[in-house]
């Protein structure tokens, strides 16, 4: 009897030790494992944006034709992309956040969902009214609305199953991120770093919408779900516990309460480690003089246990930000990356600050931190022992001070890369990264906090880097093991579109002028296909298969920070307009309007 019991417990323990295999939402794992679907915004939980489909390949991609198009009926910036599950396609729009379920058989709209949202959230949204798409699991489509309502819709009918309020727009809290389903939870973040929002990540039960945990980016250890003795960070060349009050000690007074560190990017998940990964954003305000200290844990890579939210490890990339180098960009998980002769299972992150980071994703060790644009000048390098960037005084807006215009900082606030997600090619273990190539002048000034009102505190001018190719973007290939650019393809404007790489040997991305481009994955300077869509592209390229044919789809619809900002707001007002011709020119290529374009071989 006793031995039998022991045996049973042994089995249970064994299951618990393999949580990824035993408990992860088997449906989503199965769906993403079949390349016919595009069942998550990044194609899989590792954020790889890779597809094993190869019907469309480097030899025939030149023959691509438009199969069908679909208008969302909404203007403004269209980020994210469609999901495809079986014979259905689900696509979203920016505010008012419509969702369409489209039958792939005949492109009929099976159902449409349009939430009623208070338009007063519009001015509280930072950089246009974008939304980065929906998630699927358990027969439900999850929509994270701008007004912070997280909604579960019946995937068959579009009827609301549950709805929960994730934040408060009256305090400046809004949402633009896509929800992500890991195991039995839907994970979402919060936007509002420009409104003094205190960032957090939250997990809700996919069945009921009940909040399971919520972990803040700043504040007391318990509210961040940090254990001072067990949560680790890179310290003097090794991992060490963060210690007590690691955030509180890094802020003056109560500033952490309005300290930013918002969480509006893409999240990834390692089923074996049961860890989810994401980045926290800029500290509020943009005036560094007003918030002394390292401002932990803004600008940080986080690894949290999916079930409890407890923080396994953190790494702060830009302590005491002085440039709005928001750390929210995606964490891509890749296995067997050769770092100094050893294969490592890593997390790769291309930060706004211009450094590409490679971390051991189990332990949080810093392995590589190198510039992924040679014009990055605000820091000479990252000290690999302390993990801290070595800031150049000339470009330090803190050192130059408030009401001083610090000139020539590269990259600009929108970063060497913003939210536009990169792709990983397991065939050659290289990363395909859409980047910005923009510098700035930055003048911080004092601001006072009023709940729900902008708390920015800096004026910026942005322009292409002097002494470069004159354009404002590059599409690059990156070796995360060595931290080196393998190849760089210049683009006229920022590449603000998520990349796709496939087993067909192609990499595809969109441009702000509105082109879809596919290049040879082994030599990205070879442009194999180009098509001008209805509007500028800030959406991501996705691919799927239906009835034996491979399709590639992308949302067009200029806007977002890149589109609106570049087209309208970034002229150097006092220094003459010579340097900014490039930005204004975007108007010569594109207009607003959301359209999904789907490509197929003839």
């Amino acid at each position, binding site marked *: 009897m006793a031995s039998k019991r022991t045996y049973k417990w042994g089995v249970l323990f064994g299951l618990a030790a393999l949580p990824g295999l035993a408990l992860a939402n088997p449906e989503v794992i199965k769906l993403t494992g079949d390349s016919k679907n595009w069942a998550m915004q990044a194609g899989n939980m590792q954020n790889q944006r890779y597809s094993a489909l190869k019907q469309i390949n480097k030899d025939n991609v030149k023959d691509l034709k438009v199969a069908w198009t679909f208008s969302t009926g909404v203007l*403004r910036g269209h980020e994210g992309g469609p999901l495809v599950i079986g014979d259905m396609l689900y696509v979203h729009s920016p505010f008012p956040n419509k969702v369409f379920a489209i039958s792939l058989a005949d492109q009929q709209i099976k159902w449409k969902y349009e939430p009623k949202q*208070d*338009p*007063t959230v*519009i*001015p*509280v949204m*930072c*950089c*246009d*009214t974008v939304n980065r798409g929906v998630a699927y699991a358990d027969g439900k489509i999850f929509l994270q609305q701008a007004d912070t309502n997280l909604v579960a819709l019946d995937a068959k009918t579009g009827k609301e199953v549950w709805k929960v309020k994730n934040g408060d727009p009256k305090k400046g809290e809004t949402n633009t991120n896509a929800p992500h389903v890991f195991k039995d939870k839907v994970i979402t973040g919060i936007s509002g770093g*420009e409104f003094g929002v205190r960032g957090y990540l939250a997990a809700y039960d996919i069945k009921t919408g009940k909040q399971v945990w919520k972990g803040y980016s700043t504040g007391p250890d318990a509210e961040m779900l940090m254990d001072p003795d067990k949560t680790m960070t890179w310290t003097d060349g090794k991992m060490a516990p963060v210690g007590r009050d690691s955030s509180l000690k890094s802020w003056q007074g109560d500033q952490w309460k309005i300290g930013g560190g918002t969480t509006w990017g893409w999240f990834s998940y390692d089923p074996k480690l049961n860890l989810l990964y994401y980045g926290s954003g800029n500290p509020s305000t943009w005036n560094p003089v007003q918030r002394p200290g390292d401002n932990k844990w803004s600008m940080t890579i986080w690894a949290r246990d999916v079930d409890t939210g407890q923080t396994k490890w953190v790494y702060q990339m830009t302590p005491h930000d002085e440039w709005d180098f928001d750390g929210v960009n995606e964490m891509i998980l890749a296995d067997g990356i050769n770092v100094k002769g050893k294969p490592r299972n890593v997390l790769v992150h291309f930060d706004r600050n211009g450094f590409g980071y490679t971390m051991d994703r189990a332990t949080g060790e810093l392995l590589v931190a190198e510039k992924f644009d040679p014009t990055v000048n605000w820091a000479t390098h990252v000290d690999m022992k302390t993990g801290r960037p070595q800031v150049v005084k000339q470009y330090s807006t803190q050192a130059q001070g408030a009401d001083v*215009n610090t000139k020539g900082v590269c990259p600009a606030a929108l970063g060497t890369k913003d939210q536009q997600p990169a792709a990983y090619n397991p065939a050659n273990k290289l990363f395909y990264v859409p980047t910005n190539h923009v510098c700035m002048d930055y*003048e911080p*000034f004092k*601001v*006072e906090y*009023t709940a*729900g*009102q*902008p708390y*920015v*505190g800096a*004026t910026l001018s942005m322009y292409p880097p002097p002494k470069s190719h004159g354009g404002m973007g590059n599409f690059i290939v990156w070796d995360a093991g060595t931290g080196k650019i393998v190849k760089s393809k210049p683009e006229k404007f920022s590449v603000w579109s998520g990349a796709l790489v496939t087993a067909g040997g192609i990499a595809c991305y969109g441009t702000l002028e509105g082109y879809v481009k596919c290049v040879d994955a082994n030599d990205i300077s070879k442009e194999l296909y180009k098509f001008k869509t209805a509007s500028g592209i800030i959406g991501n390229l996705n691919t799927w298969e239906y009835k034996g044919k491979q399709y590639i789809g992308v949302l067009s619809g200029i806007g977002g920070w890149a589109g*609106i900002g570049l087209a*309208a*707001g*970034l*002229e150097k*007002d*006092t220094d003459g307009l010579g340097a900014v011709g490039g930005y204004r020119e975007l108007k010569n290529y594109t207009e607003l309007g959301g359209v999904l374009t789907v490509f197929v071989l003839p």
Partner: protein
Amino acid sequence: MKKTQFVAGIAFVLVALSPGYAVAADGKPYKVAGGNKVDKVTLEGWRTWRALACERCHGARQEGMVGPSLIESLRRLSKDEFKGSVLKGRPEKGMPNFDGSKMVTENIDGLYAYLKGRADGAIQPGRLEELK
């Protein structure tokens, strides 16, 4: 009825006379030299514009983005209409109410003067200094 008209009449006269002290001799609510040097009130208006990040919706040059072009609006709106829009907002169109902001309520005249100067083409976009 008559009384109402009388009161309105006085109000009209006051409004017509009031620019005498608040406005420069040419009838403009701002003073400007060289396009980027302005009187103190207008300067505070620009600082308010900057601090409340109005450019996020209306554009760095007030040319309009998510929100309307203020270059055009300020040619059309009366000062009272302008104040009403800013302080009470236009929630149905997405314009928030700024009556909760001390900086806005204290500098609403300067904000009007600054934007009027922009609409008139007299004040340049970008950084301003105080006219001494």
